[in-house]
């Protein structure tokens, strides 16, 4: 049973349905972090001693493994970051800032792909454009093409799978469209990297960013893939130790990428754990992950149909993040009453306030699946939900 791989489930009798927020960590991830701290703790790229070399080797092995995991080519670059938020901020500051008149985003973006653009003084219609959506929350590709036509040479920054609604964007089609109008493109893969077999050599975006903690790895670490065709156009937006070739009082020169983008001591334990997280995904297998989610989503949609007054948002091709509202009841009340029954779900706007406002709601209740989610979790969730609704409706 997959749950046995996760100490969290040994220590808690909880139905955990908030994996879109963060996934639980398997024992192999925790062991790798503990081993680093207890057996060879040292810094990277500097030591003149055995453990320093070992740490550097492990760190770079992680880089290569994770790059391969997403189908990156050897000539492409993988930069370690704190996560998707830092990945987008890095691109915004090191590449987009003064080089692009327009940034285009979708309606389903997380705040982390909205506010970095506001920080550059871009507002709707003034350096920032937002792609419309269809009734089922899928992207309006005609509108995207209109925007790309009107804003040639723009920068498109878009999520692969919506965190709030689980909508999968047709990312290959979007990349191809962006190329037609000479746009550069960043993809936020926070919700995708743990469930889709990615192939950067086929997709060929300019940037792809994702976080370890949603890939069964530790918090505070992530990766930014950069296509080899543009890596030399990026300038570091922060500097310090570990990125420097030579420094004099007159000037500094930087190490080559990716090191020049990784200022200061990195989250070494995190990077080592990150590799183990994606190894774990591979060991479970993308097909198994897909089949399990497909089966559970079918049950979820069918169970929702049995409850009066429920609005389930998004299309029927959901990728495992299912958001819903119950008439006359706020998500927070349901979230708390589910928590009392040891069922962990997410209530609120899911860091996607603009789309919530556009739908005329303050937020939703979201259930999201992980590799360990099973039919029993879903049954317990629905019996808990029905009980919570009964308490609130009387």
């Amino acid at each position: 049973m997959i749950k046995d791989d996760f100490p969290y489930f040994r220590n808690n009798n909880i139905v955990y349905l908030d994996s879109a927020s963060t996934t639980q960590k398997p024992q192999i991830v925790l062991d790798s972090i503990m081993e680093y701290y207890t057996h060879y703790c040292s810094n990277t790229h500097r030591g003149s001693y055995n453990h320093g070399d070992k740490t550097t080797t492990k760190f770079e092995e992680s880089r290569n493994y994770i790059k391969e995991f997403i189908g990156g080519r050897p000539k492409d670059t993988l930069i370690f970051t704190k996560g998707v938020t830092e990945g987008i901020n890095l691109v915004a500051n090191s590449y987009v800032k003064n080089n692009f008149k327009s940034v285009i985003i979708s309606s389903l973006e997380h705040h982390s792909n909205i506010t970095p653009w506001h920080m550059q003084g871009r507002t709707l219609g003034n350096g920032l454009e937002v792609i419309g959506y269809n009734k089922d929350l899928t992207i309006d590709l005609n509108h995207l093409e209109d925007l790309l036509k009107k804003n040639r040479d723009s920068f498109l920054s878009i999520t692969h799978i919506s965190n709030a609604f689980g909508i999968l964007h047709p990312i290959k089609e979007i990349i191809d469209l962006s190329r037609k109008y000479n746009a550069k493109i960043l993809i936020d893969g926070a919700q995708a990297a743990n469930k889709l077999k990615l192939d950067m050599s086929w997709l060929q975006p300019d940037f792809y960013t994702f976080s370890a903690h949603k890939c069964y790895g530790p918090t505070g670490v992530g990766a930014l893939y950069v296509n080899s065709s543009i890596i030399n156009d990026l300038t570091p937006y922060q500097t310090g130790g570990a990125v420097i070739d030579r420094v004099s009082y007159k000037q500094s020169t930087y190490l080559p990428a990716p090191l020049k983008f990784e200022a200061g001591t990195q989250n070494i334990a995190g990077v080592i754990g990150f590799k183990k997280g994606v190894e774990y995904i591979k060991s479970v297998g993308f097909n198994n992950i897909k089949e399990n989610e497909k089966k559970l989503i079918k049950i979820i949609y069918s169970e929702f149909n049995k409850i009066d007054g429920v609005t389930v948002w998004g299309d029927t091709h959901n990728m495992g993040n299912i958001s819903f509202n119950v008439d006359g009841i706020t998500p927070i009340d349901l979230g708390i009453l589910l928590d009392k029954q040891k069922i962990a779900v997410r209530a609120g706007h899911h860091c996607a306030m603009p789309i919530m406002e556009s739908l005329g709601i303050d937020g939703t209740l979201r259930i999201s699946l992980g590799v360990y989610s099973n039919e029993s979790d879903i049954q317990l969730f629905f019996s808990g939900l029905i009980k919570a609704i009964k308490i609130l409706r009387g």
Partner: protein
Amino acid sequence: MSLYKETLMKHFRNPEHKFELENFSKKQDGVNPSCGDNITLYTKINNSIIEDISYTGNGCAISMASADIMCEVLKNRDNGVNISLDFTSMLNGEDINFTNELEVLNVFKEMQNYPARKSCALLPWKTLTTLLNS
């Protein structure tokens, strides 16, 4: 599920004071920015006495039940601000026990254990304080 006591649920499910008062003399909007709960209070005040009070709004069970109970206990009273202060202190952990017609307010004592939900229970009272001080 002690937070969701039957007394609260009764007021949430079947509110008695959730409507717009006719010929109100003062009205005040209140919002809880963290969760979006919102309320509008309507009052008829004569010589500092709240002769009538009602509310409209949208929000969680706790905020709506709190508004309904507040309207119930404040009718024909002139010390709304003081009750509001005591209610806030009770939620902040002070040993306050309401008696007589105000006894129902003790049901919110439990909220001391749910810091994230205090603002829900306090929304109508904060809105009332703004209204009475304006």
